[in-house]
């Protein structure tokens, strides 16, 4: 006899199994990330620095353009919470402004690097053959460029601005994302959904844009945080050597240039708070990056 069709029993769980909503890979990864305590601490720290840099100046008004040499090199007082520097500027105010520059450069350089890298990597992975080989050799060449030296030379010639530093750093940091995306594309292009898309008549561009890149998102997002770390540290090195953003722009590294002299004079407030800002921001990003990497790694999942 034909099977009797049972009325749909929506409200009851099937025998023997729990019913949970189907979660996409990304959502699972995000949940894994959120359950990592260090990641949340890192995220909170990063949020703090974003607020510190952009919202801080709204509450703590300081004048960063007129020098008041009479007030130079003062220890922390009531009106200048972290003292003043050699030009009479309030150190805390400078730190806030420097934070803006650091985070802007970090984010923008990472963006440029990721966009370039994703484009090059996906084209290399999808097209393959000679173009792939050629692009990979170009990647090797760019990987061999000592970035700090090139950035310094460019900064000497053209001066340093947020835009120029970001573009320069991004233009030489795309190699790792390109390799990562290429690897993902090589794995993904054999999958059925790619075959299906091709059969449906999808063009190469559409394939890359709508199918391959969203799936490579996981590795890319991990790399974004580490790109930001590298960019912020690089900018601080450039600034420390005296080639960073100059007046009236402020940069954390620039605040520390010539700091050996401040140490000798005992002006600790001009050095350690700024340095701590750099360390904490980088630590926050490292926490987030490590946690994202662990979250994306399926082997470490608890289930």
């Amino acid at each position, binding site marked *: 006899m034909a099977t009797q069709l049972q009325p749909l029993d929506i409200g009851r769980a099937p025998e023997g199994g729990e019913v949970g909503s189907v979660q996409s890979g990304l959502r699972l990864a995000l949940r894994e990330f959120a359950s990592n305590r260090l990641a949340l601490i890192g995220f909170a720290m990063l949020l703090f620095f974003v607020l510190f840099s952009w919202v801080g100046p709204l509450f703590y008004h300081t004048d960063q353009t007129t020098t008041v040499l009479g007030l130079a090199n003062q220890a922390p007082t009531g009106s200048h919470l972290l003292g003043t520097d050699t030009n009479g500027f309030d150190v805390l105010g400078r730190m806030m402004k420097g934070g803006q520059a650091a985070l802007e450069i970090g984010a923008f350089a990472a963006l440029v690097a990721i966009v370039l890298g994703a484009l090059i990597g996906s084209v290399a992975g999808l097209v393959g053959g000679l173009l792939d080989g050629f692009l990979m050799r170009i990647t090797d060449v760019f990987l061999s460029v000592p970035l700090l030296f090139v950035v310094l*030379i460019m900064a000497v010639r053209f001066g340093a601005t947020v835009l120029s530093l970001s573009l320069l750093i991004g233009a030489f940091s795309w190699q790792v994302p390109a390799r990562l995306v290429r690897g993902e594309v090589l794995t993904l292009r054999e999958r059925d959904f790619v075959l299906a898309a091709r059969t449906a008549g999808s063009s190469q561009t559409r394939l890359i844009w709508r199918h391959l890149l969203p799936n490579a998102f996981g590795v890319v997002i991990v790399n974004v945080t580490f790109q930001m770390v590298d960019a912020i540290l690089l900018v601080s090195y450039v600034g420390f050597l005296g080639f960073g953003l100059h007046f009236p722009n402020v940069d954390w590294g620039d605040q520390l240039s010539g700091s050996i002299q401040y140490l000798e004079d005992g002006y600790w407030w001009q050095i350690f708070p700024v340095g701590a800002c750099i*360390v904490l921001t980088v630590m926050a990003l490292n926490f987030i990056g490590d946690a994202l990497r662990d979250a994306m790694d399926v082997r470490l999942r608890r289930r």
Partner: protein
Amino acid sequence: MLAYLLRRLITSLIVVFGVSIGIFILLHAVYPSPARYVLGLRATQLDVDVWNKQNGYADPAITQYLRYMGHLLTGNLGFSYVENQSVWDLLKERTPRSVWLSGISLVFAILIAIPLGIFQAVKRNTVGDNVATSLAFITYSMPSFFLGLILIQVFAFSFPILGFEASQSNNVFVIMGDWKDMTLPVATLTLVSVAAYSRYMRSASMDVLAQDYIKVARAKGLPERLVMGRHLVRNASLPMVTLIGLSLPLLLAGNLITESLFNYPGLGLLFFTSLNKVDYPVMLAYTLAGAVLVVVGNLIADIALTVADPRIRLA
């Protein structure tokens, strides 16, 4: 294996060639000729053109590049008009000092990081591990000059034990013996490297400890110290080999920062001075050296790993 090595060597040569062209073109675009510097700001454009033609700066970039490469093979790295010396002499004078600084830091870093990483993995999640991991993480997130500043503050100012300016001596042996002035620069470079290495060493050691052959070794009744010494150290050190090769060029960059901070007259300080005085021949030579070091470092890392790990050799 020989075929693999040969292939890697040829690839590296091509990459060096490509990078050198790129860097040369870049610097050439930024600084076409030192004529203005030599002739002074009052010289007319005609004077500049004549000087350029006489000294080969009017030639197309490719010709200049080939000429530079040709000179390179004979050891001529160009002439610094700022310092009024050949670049080769400038580099020769300073290389031993930088090699000593980087070399001794690298040796110490390896000697500290390998046991430290293993300790962290073996005593996982104990107080010792947590303290070491946290310290390593903080140091890893620090720009190296900030670590140097902290060390200077603590050891040279707050408790005046050590000097904060590195030895200025011309004699490498005097420098080697001058522990009072050299401890802080070496310590800065070492600690930065240890932070990075011990992170890798820790995770590599944890991976090895989870392997089956460790279980087998213990099941066979091998004393724990032999399990550590014979199996753990050798297998966990493999990623370190790659890491050390890859960090060779970073030592040059680290040199730059540390030497500027401690005023140590090595290659890094030379580059820093050349930046301030806009001395392009030196900048070009230094950047090319950096690029070559990156490629050489990669090559060494690959070769060393192939030699050390039979699984790769026979694959």
